[in-house]
């Protein structure tokens, strides 16, 4: 029973959260994505393959938030969760 409970809580993949224009591009607030290439570059390619031009516009000058740090480094290893951040437009 304990093993089953543990397995039940371990959802596969990385939690990807979408904000503002990224949520519009996907129609989602978040989803889990399983990647062969567990890097920001791998995620970027997967997002472009899934969501096409609207996502390309978001990522052109957008960024990602991982472990509290904003990054655009394609070699950056992914953890449990990553946020897709469209270009900032505060002020």
């Amino acid at each position: 029973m304990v093993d089953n409970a543990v397995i039940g809580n371990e959802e596969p993949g990385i939690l990807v959260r979408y904000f503002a224009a990224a949520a519009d591009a996907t129609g989602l607030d978040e989803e889990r994505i399983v990647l062969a290439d567990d890097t920001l570059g791998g995620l970027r390619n997967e997002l472009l393959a899934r969501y096409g031009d609207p996502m390309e516009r978001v990522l052109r000058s957008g960024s990602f938030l991982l472990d509290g740090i904003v990054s655009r480094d394609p070699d950056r290893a992914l953890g449990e969760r990553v946020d897709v951040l469209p270009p900032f437009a505060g002020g």
Partner: protein
Amino acid sequence: MPDPNSAGTFSAISATPIDASAVEDFVLSAENGALVAFRGIVRNHDRDGAVTGLDYQAHPDAERFLRECCETVAAATGLRVAAVHRTGSLAIGEVALVAAVAAPHRAEAFAACAELVDSIKASVPIWKRQHFASGSSEWVGL
């Protein structure tokens, strides 16, 4: 206003109208003879379109990034620094951002406030959707 984050800075994300005078009052002190405050205000046009309002959305961590902007400027200058950013639906003329810096003399206050606003615009995860008179809308900056 709530307590400051740390000595010399105050920052917040606010879903309700910003009390600009409270932000300015935070940076005032007996040794400061110059106060520079910036208000970012929703305007009625952008490029060629007539704008009717803006919806601001902040990332859940936006307040931390705003605090880091204030603390970085405060640490670099030794000045008192405060900033509050709005979220939600704002009409033309409403205040989206108040940033304030006080210094003994005006030159430092002008420079630090400009640096603070540039830093906030560049590094705080906040987005705005612009509504046009035509009925269409778009995320700004895409």
